[in-house]
């Protein structure tokens, strides 16, 4: 913890605040020194910690897998190649089980999602004070008030990160739907289901109802995708923070929760991947 002894509320809020850089109405482009300043920045701000960690972890993923891909041999594989092949086969099988269309994008997309989300979630297992304290020390070196250096390590506890990915997937869903069924097919899917009737007049009456139902279903996809991951990790992180506040007894508790959290981390990465595949196959398959 940085600076003077904060109250539990302050401690938690400090931990849940991102390192924000943005356009403040009064200070111009700057790093936010408080939660208030960060929220004053509105949309024109970026969370440096979220972006930094997620991009860094993504690059680690790409670097590792690229290394394995470069040295991929048909002979006896090394440890890294073995691991990479295991992941690739696992993802490939998951995709083949669910997605029956032909697409060069789906499998790499699923692999990227799984590995990236997993790595981002994995940051949750780093004890909650380590990296923020380090950041506070570094911030202090550059003359910042350590109490106001915010640093949130787990990118998936930031709804921006999960929503960013979910909206990308959403875009792909719409793109693929239109590509396979045409624009009229896409509109038809939104308006002609689930209620339809051979009678034209009745059908016309059904269209608004159908649209309401289907549009909500469509929108629910990215939102549920984003909020599921965010909610799980945010809650997990919050419990880690609460455990970190109780003194010496945090050690066994932290260990127990971390062990349990390993499951959540993997599971959420898998669910995000699996749902993406399912949504994409729904987009491509004809009814």
């Amino acid at each position: 913890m940085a600076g003077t002894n904060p109250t539990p509320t302050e401690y938690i809020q400090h931990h849940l605040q991102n390192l924000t850089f943005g356009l403040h109405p009064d200070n111009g482009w700057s790093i936010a020194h408080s939660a208030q300043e960060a929220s004053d920045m509105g949309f024109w701000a970026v969370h440096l910690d979220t972006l930094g960690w997620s991009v860094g972890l993504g690059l680690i993923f790409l670097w590792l897998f690229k290394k394995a891909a470069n040295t991929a041999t048909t002979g006896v594989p090394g440890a890294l190649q073995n691991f990479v092949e295991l992941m690739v086969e696992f993802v490939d099988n998951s995709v083949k089980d669910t997605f029956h269309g032909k697409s060069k994008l789906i499998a790499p997309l699923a692999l990227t999602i799984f590995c990236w989300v997993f790595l981002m979630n994995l940051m949750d297992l780093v004890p909650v004070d380590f990296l923020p304290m380090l950041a506070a020390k570094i911030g202090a070196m550059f003359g910042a008030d350590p109490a106001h250096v915010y640093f949130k390590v787990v990118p998936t506890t930031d709804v921006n990160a999960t929503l960013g990915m979910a909206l990308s997937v959403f875009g792909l869903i719409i793109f693929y739907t239109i590509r396979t069924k045409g624009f009229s097919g896409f509109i038809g899917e939104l308006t002609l289901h689930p209620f339809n009737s051979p009678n034209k007049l009745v059908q016309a009456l059904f269209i608004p109802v159908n649209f309401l139902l289907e549009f909500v279903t469509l929108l629910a996809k990215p939102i549920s995708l984003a909020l599921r991951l965010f909610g799980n990790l945010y809650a997990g992180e919050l419990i880690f923070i609460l455990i970190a506040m109780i003194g010496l007894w945090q050690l066994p508790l932290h260990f127990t929760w971390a062990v349990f959290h390993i499951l959540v981390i993997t599971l959420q990465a898998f669910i995000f991947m699996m749902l993406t595949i399912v949504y994409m196959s729904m987009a491509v398959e004809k009814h």
Partner: protein
Amino acid sequence: MNLNLTLVGQAIAFAFFVWFCMKFIWPPVMQALQERQKKIADGLDAASRAARDLEVAEKEADETLRKSKQEAAEILEQAQKQANQKLEQAREDARLEGERMIAKAKSEIEQEVARAKEDLRAQVSRLAVLGAERILESSIDEKQHAAIVDKLAKEL
């Protein structure tokens, strides 16, 4: 929990990662996997083929062994037969030769006996003449009496 530009940044990063993965990671790994799969399949194929070949070769070897054993037995039998024949022949030859030799020896003995008889007869006749000469005290004409003695000798 402010929605802000981070969302866009994350989406861009995501797009880049997916693109990179699709372009540079997925194809080589998949290719390596498929090639290895093919290699293993080929290897298994070759192994089963080799096993089949081995079986055939073993059968062939068995067949050859059996044939050569049979041939050897035949040759051995023939050789024995031949040897028996030769032995029989030799035995027959020996018997004939023996008989011939016995016959020859018999005739020689007979000749010998005849000669000895002749000699004895001659000597007896001379002895008789000599005896007679002694008896008659050389009064007898040898030539005249020789015929008588010969006649006598022949009667012996």
